[in-house]
C-alpha cells in the first residue's frame, strides 16, 4: 500500500516535472495522426504512384517516368495547363472587383447591413448550384444572357458550346462567389482603416483615386493578402463548376488539370491511377510554388512579432 502510493507520487512528480513539455504533444497527437494519415502520407503515395501503371484493382506495374513522358506528348494536358493559367489570371479580377463593391457598400445608410449580406449571398451557395444557375444563364434557347444581348442588338451566343468562350464563361461563374468573398474581406478591412490618416489625407488635398491608392490600399494589405491566397487556391481548385457546367467540353476544351486528372483516373474514360497521379503531381508542384510563398510571408510576420 505504502509502496503503491509512493510509486504513484513518484510517477506524479515525474509527470509534474515534465508536464509542460508533454502536454502539447498529448494535445497534438490526435490531430497530427489524423492529418498525417489522410493528408500528408497520401501526398507521398501519389508521388510514388505516378511511377506506376495501375487500374485501381490489379497489380501495379512499375513504369518509371513513363507517365510523365506520356504527359509531355499529351495534347489534352497542354489544353488543361493553358486553361489553368487563364483561370489563375482572370480569377484575380475578383480582388479589385471585391474592393470596388466593398467601397460602394461601405456606407451607413439604413438597411446597408442587409445589402451587404445579400451581396455576399453567392459565396454561401454551393458551386454546384452556382454552376447550374449559370448554365441556364448562358443557355442558348432561353438564357438571360441572350435576352440581354438581344436587347442591345447583339447576336446571340452559345457560351458553353464555343471552344473560345467556354473557359471564360465558367470563370465568370466562378468570379461571382469569389468576388463576394473578396468583398467581405475588404469590408472588414475598411472598418479597420485609420480615420485619422484619412482626415490627414483630406487636409493634404488627397481625394478619390489618389486617396484610395496611397492611403487606403496600403492599409488594406492584410485583407489583400488573404484575398490573394484564397483566390489563387480557388482558381487552382476549380473543379465543381467545370464538372457541372460542361463536363470538360466541348471536346475537352474547358478542362483544367484538376478536372483532367479526375477524368483520367476515375471516370468512364478509364481508371489510369498512375497517369492521374502524374497529372496531380504537376498540379501540386504549381500549387507548391504558391504555398511556399504564402508560408514564407507568414513566417516573416511570425518573426516580426
Amino acid at each position, binding site marked *: 500500500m505504502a509502496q503503491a502510493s509512493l510509486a504513484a507520487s513518484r510517477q506524479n512528480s515525474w509527470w509534474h516535472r515534465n508536464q*509542460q513539455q508533454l502536454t*502539447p504533444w498529448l*494535445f*497534438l497527437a*490526435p*490531430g497530427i495522426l*489524423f*492529418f498525417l494519415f*489522410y*493528408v500528408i502520407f497520401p501526398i507521398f*503515395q*501519389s508521388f510514388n504512384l505516378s511511377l506506376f501503371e495501375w487500374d*485501381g484493382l490489379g497489380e501495379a506495374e512499375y513504369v518509371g517516368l513513363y507517365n510523365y513522358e506520356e504527359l509531355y506528348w499529351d495534347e489534352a494536358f497542354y489544353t488543361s495547363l493553358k486553361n489553368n493559367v487563364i483561370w489563375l489570371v482572370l480569377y484575380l479580377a475578383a480582388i479589385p472587383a471585391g474592393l470596388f463593391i466593398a*467601397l*460602394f457598400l*461601405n456606407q*451607413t*445608410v439604413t438597411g446597408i447591413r442587409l*445589402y451587404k*449580406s*445579400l*451581396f455576399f*449571398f*453567392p459565396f*454561401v*451557395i*454551393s*458551386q454546384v*448550384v452556382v454552376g*447550374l444557375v449559370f448554365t441556364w444563364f448562358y443557355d442558348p434557347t*432561353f438564357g*438571360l444572357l441572350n*435576352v440581354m444581348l438581344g436587347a442591345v442588338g447583339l447576336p446571340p451566343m452559345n457560351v458553353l458550346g464555343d471552344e473560345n468562350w467556354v473557359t471564360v464563361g465558367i470563370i465568370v461563374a466562378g468570379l461571382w462567389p469569389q468576388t463576394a468573398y473578396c468583398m*467581405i474581406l475588404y469590408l*472588414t478591412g*475598411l472598418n*479597420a*482603416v485609420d480615420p485619422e490618416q*484619412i482626415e490627414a489625407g483630406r487636409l493634404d488635398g488627397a481625394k478619390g483615386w489618389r486617396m484610395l491608392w496611397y492611403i*487606403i490600399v496600403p492599409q488594406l494589405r*492584410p485583407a489583400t493578402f*488573404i484575398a490573394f491566397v484564397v483566390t489563387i487556391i480557388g482558381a*487552382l*481548385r476549380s*473543379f*465543381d463548376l467545370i464538372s*457541372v457546367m460542361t463536363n470538360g467540353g466541348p471536346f475537352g476544351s474547358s478542362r483544367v488539370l484538376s478536372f483532367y486528372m*479526375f477524368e483520367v*483516373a476515375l471516370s468512364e474514360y478509364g481508371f489510369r*491511377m498512375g497517369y492521374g*497521379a502524374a497529372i496531380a*503531381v504537376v*498540379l*501540386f508542384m504549381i*500549387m507548391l510554388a504558391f*504555398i511556399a510563398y*504564402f508560408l514564407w510571408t*507568414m*513566417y516573416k510576420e*511570425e518573426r516580426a512579432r
Partner: protein
Amino acid sequence: MFPTPIERTSRTWQISYQTLLPLALILWLLPLIAVAIFSVKPDIDFANANYWGWPTSFEGFTNYALVFTGSDMPQYLMNSFRITIPTVIGAVALSCMTGFALGVYKFKANIWIFFMFVAGNFVPFQILMVPVRDLTLQMGLYNTITGLVLFHIAFQTGFCTLFMRNFIRALPFELIEAARVEGVAEWRIFWYVVLPLMKPAIAALSVLIFTFIWNDYFWAVVLTQGVESQPVTAGITSFNAQYRAAYHLMSAGSIVAALPPVAMFFLMQRHFIAGLTLGAVK
C-alpha cells in the same frame, strides 16, 4: 471613413446612391432571382416557351412539394446533415486541442507543425484523391458516410488549426500564467481557462465548416455513389437527370439544396464573417 460618408455629400449623389443600391443588388443577384422565379412557375410555361414572362399561375407549393415527395431529395438532404454535423464536431474538437497546443506552448517543432497544417490545407485535392480513395476502400468505408466524414475531419483540421491557433495567440497570456502560478494542471487550464474564451472562435469555425462541408462536391463524388450515402450536392445531379428539362423542378431542387448553409449564414452572420477573415483582419 472612406469613401466619404454619404451624409456629407451633395444631395444629388445621395439620391443617386439610394437608387443605385437596389439596382446594383438586383443586377448582382439576377441569376439567382431567375432561378427563384423558375421554381414557382408551372410546367406549362416552359412548354409554351414563356421563360421570362410572368408565371401564368403560382405553382410554388406544388413544385417544392414534388421535390420532397417525388424524388430522393429528402434522403440526400438527410445524408448531407449526417455528413456535415459530425464533421463540424470532429474538426472543431481536434483543432481546439491542436490550436491550444500550438498557441500556448513554446517548443522547437511548434512552427513546423503549424506550417504542416497550413500547407496541407492548401494542397490540391487531386494529389490526395487516389490514395485516399484506396485507403477508404481498404478500410471497407467506401460509399459510407463514415468514410467521408473521417476524411473531412482530417482535412478540415488543417484550416481549423490555423484559425484556432491564431485566435488563442491573441488571448491574454497572463490568464494562463496566473493559473500556472496557482498550480492548476495544464489540461485544467485548457478546459477551464482557455476553452471558455474560445467560444466565439468555435462558433465562427462551426458555421464556416458547416458551409464548406455542405457544399463539398468533389469528395462526395470520389468517396460515395448512390442514394444511401451521397450528399445533396452530388444528389442534385441525379435529381436533374430524373427531371431533365423540367426547369421548374430543377430550380426548386437547387434552392432546397442551397438553403441550409444560407439559413446558417443569416442566423450566424457575425460569426461567419469573423471566420472568413481568419481573424487576421480585425
